[in-house]
């Protein structure tokens, strides 16, 4: 096999946190980008797939590991990549043409050639007539076309794409995806490989020749899935849907299964507001067993939005997940049928029994004679395991759950968690001793 264009070996990324504890985002990632392929990188949100792409692009330095450019890329020292951004990253003060010329200008190419190449790229991507327009005059789809033209005009060997279609509406995204694939399949661009980071499994199966599935906290390569379907691919095709299902169950595997036992930190509480549970539970009440993927499609939810809610229901014992299907438990059924106040009651019982972190917060407050505790205390306590940013998010979620379950209250002004009056009284009574 030919030498890979980009070879990443044993990539670790640890973000230093104030206070010493680092947050590890990537662990031991091995990855090869080979000539002639479209490689998709899939993973749950916050898994560090974008960080991985930025390491490949040379935007972020890895904490450990080696990145080698080989084949046609050798000697170009990172000069052979271009990137398309989720947010388009267009300069609002530059016209379409000036945006496209950006990379050429930085490479010191003279004006005449710059214009000629830029105009060619603009024509190729279907933007002719808009050369003099400013990005804000264009629709989202047209803006991302500028992003593509800007990337392709520098003739990159490897085209990196960070969720390039996720800020677009469904039709526009599909249109752009097809146009890109056409350029690629018909070899109208000299690009030798494409790496696309996405959270849409369907997009990956539609475009890529190979998908890499990452786990989370920290991200490791969980699986590598070859996608050997001929283009153009039919989404209704059985092999297509099988691949989607296969990757889906890989993604929804609980993190614990893939990991080595030993020094594991407590599972974080999924960052979901308590209100989100009600909607899903009510939906599930009518359908005993639902495929999570179909559910997401129906609700027009991305995997990333739906998974935390599912995880939360699982944690609370209100639902169970088997092989990509979700089902309400006995308790969950009771919850769905209950009134608003009864729901709070059930939520409180379940949360105290099954969410150790929440129970712990409540215990800390009960042990204090005034029933109050600073927010920072809990953040500090969690920082060791999660790092500051995640610890903040954890505490936010716990506060939301605690408020909903009426386990405790929170005062934004003083940033203190506290037991409400009658609760404090109860805590000081015999049971609190």
């Amino acid at each position, binding site marked *: 096999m030919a030498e890979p264009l980009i070879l990443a070996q044993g990539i670790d990324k640890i973000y230093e946190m104030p206070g010493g504890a680092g947050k590890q985002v990537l662990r031991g990632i091995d990855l090869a980008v080979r000539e002639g392929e479209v490689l998709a990188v899939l993973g749950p949100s916050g898994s560090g797939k974008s960080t991985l792409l*930025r390491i490949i692009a*040379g935007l972020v330095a890895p904490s450990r590991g080696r990145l080698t450019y080989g084949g046609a890329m050798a000697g170009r020292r990172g000069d052979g990549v271009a990137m398309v951004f989720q947010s388009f990253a267009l300069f*609002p003060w530059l016209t379409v043409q*000036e945006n496209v010329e950006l990379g050429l200008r930085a490479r010191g190419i003279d004006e005449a050639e710059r214009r000629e190449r830029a105009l060619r790229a603009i024509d190729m991507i279907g933007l002719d007539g808009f050369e003099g327009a400013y990005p804000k005059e264009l629709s989202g789809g047209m803006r991302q076309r500028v992003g593509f033209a800007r990337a392709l005009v520098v003739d990159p060997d490897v085209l990196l794409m960070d969720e390039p279609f996720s800020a677009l509406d469904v039709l526009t995204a599909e249109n752009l995806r097809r146009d890109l694939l056409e350029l690629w399949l018909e070899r109208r661009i000299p690009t030798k490989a494409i790496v696309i980071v996405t959270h849409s499994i369907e997009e990956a199966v539609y475009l890529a020749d190979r998908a890499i599935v990452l786990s989370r906290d920290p991200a490791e390569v969980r699986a590598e899935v070859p996608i050997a379907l001929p283009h153009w691919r039919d989404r209704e095709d059985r092999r297509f849907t099988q691949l989607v299902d296969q990757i889906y169950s890989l993604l929804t595997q609980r993190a614990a299964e893939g990991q080595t036992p030993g020094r594991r930190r407590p599972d974080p509480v999924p960052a979901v507001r308590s209100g989100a549970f009600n909607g899903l539970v009510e939906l599930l009440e009518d359908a005993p067993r639902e495929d999570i993927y179909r559910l997401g499609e129906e609700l027009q939810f991305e995997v990333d939005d739906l998974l935390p809610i599912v995880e939360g229901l699982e944690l609370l014992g209100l639902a169970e997940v088997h092989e990509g299907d979700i089902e309400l438990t006995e308790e969950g059924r009771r919850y769905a049928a209950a009134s608003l106040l009864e729901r709070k009651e059930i939520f409180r019982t379940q949360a105290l029994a099954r969410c150790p972190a929440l129970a712990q917060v409540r215990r800390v407050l009960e042990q204090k004679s005034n029933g109050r505790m600073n927010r920072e205390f809990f953040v500090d306590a969690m920082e060791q395991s999660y790092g500051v940013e995640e610890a903040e998010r954890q505490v936010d979620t716990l506060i939301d759950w605690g408020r909903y379950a009426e386990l405790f209250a929170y005062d934004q002004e003083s940033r203190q968690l506290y037991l409400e009056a009658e609760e404090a009284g109860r805590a000081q009574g015999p049971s609190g001793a």
Partner: protein
Amino acid sequence: MSWFPAPGIARRVRLGWVDVLVFAAVLLLLLAVLRLGGRMAAPLHALHTISLDPRFLPLYAGESLLRIFIAFLASLLFAIGYGYAAAKSPWAGRVLVPLLDILQSVPVLGFLSATLAFFAGLFPGSSLGLEFAAVFAIFTAQAWNMTFAFYHTLVTLPRDLEEASHVYRLGRWSRLWYLELPSSAITLVMNSMMSFGGSWFFLAASETVTFSGRQVMLPGIGSYMALAESRGDVPAMLAAIAIMIALIVLVDQLFWRPIIAWSQRFKLEQTPSADGPGSFVLTILRRSVLVEWVLRLLHPLWEGLWRTMSRPPRPRPARAGQGRAWRIAFTLLGLLVLAGALRAGWQLLSGISAGEVLHVGWLGILTWLRVTAAVLLGALWTVPVGVAIGLSPRVGRWAQPLAQIAASFPANMLFPIVVAWLLRVHAGLDIGAIPLMMLGTQWYILFNVIAGSMAIPQDLKEAGRIFGLKGLFRWRRLVLPAIFPSLVTGGVTAAGGAWNASIVAEVASWQHHTLVAHGLGAYITLATARGQGSQVLLGIAVMSILVVGMNRLVWRPLYHLAETRYHLD
């Protein structure tokens, strides 16, 4: 880059009347600058002859204008250079940012005599030294705020654009023109305009200075006013005030409006906004074939500059080891400066007794009370009036520019009029200094309150009406919280202005009478007049400490509150 458009298809070939207008204006501007610039380097002995003949007033006004623009240009370059260094090198930033914070708190006017001696020494026998000192005083009134604004935008650049710049390998030069300057353009322009407006006060103060025991006047509108006041020439005073207002309005219309309208293209938002601020001057410039033609002539030069300046960046982000030499150099330099400053300070202060220090501290408290009173009294009338103006869009539209002009008008030009009145009612300056301070600073509060109440979202106002909020309750629940952030901004600007004003407000004269208040400002002014360097330094040090202390203990917590709790949207 869109700074100098590339040659495209010519829109039309014939020159129109706009081109004649533009050509005449440019010619006039060049001639004026040459003529006025020549006068700046006059021999020192020729300086006393300021004529109160109103015919000379436009000339004097032009000289003042040139001074303020030279200072502004220097401030702009300084802001970009200093801000860039502070943002790019973490090591330089560690020194430069706190230093800027201190510089910002030093009362500039107190330093005037010291800088004057320095610059006069550079150009003996020529008025150029005095000109430099005046320009420097204006510079110090403008630069810090602009520098902070530029620094702040540099450290908060939009992340995706920064990444794009990196992926597409922009070098330092291209980054500056593609990313850094455009991202900061709007903030920099707005802050420049505010600083520029505020610096008229310093212009007026720096044109009449005490230098080696005698009063020296630089020809300018500030010194014209001072002379007219000392002679009690009321028509001349009125003429000066009228010209001053005309100057502020002209600069606003001919300089700031077009720049603000032009800078709208650097808005970061991706949605087209309905109507940005317009400017007839910018429209004229944009329609002029002549301007386009000149820009096209400049285009190859611009391209050539790019070719020589842009270099591809280093392939990898800088490693930790790099810049060690810089770091050492910076640390050494910092230590050296610190040691020098300590030594000089020690020498100057060694002749001062502890009793004197206590006395100055007491004076500082008196001035602090005055500053506080000036801000509170100012807020007392400007808040209701400002809200009334701001809530009525019709009134707001014409009242806001008026408040802005009032804020720009150098209040110290009006001081003697108030002093004359104080003398007539036999009031002392101990209380009288408060209205003098208010004269200049209350407008900042008014201006900000109007802006704040104009920005109250329509739905909040409607909700207030539907739920029948009235009177005091409406103020407590709706109006005050909504304008709180602008009130804090106005307050901090007003307080800063009042501190500076204390130096010229606590000693004031009308014809042959001089009134003196008990306070730190008077202490500094009198020490300056007597040439007592140590006392001046002590006074400035105490004042700086008070200002920094107030900023830390009062304004910063208020800012924090405004940003977290009373932040709309």
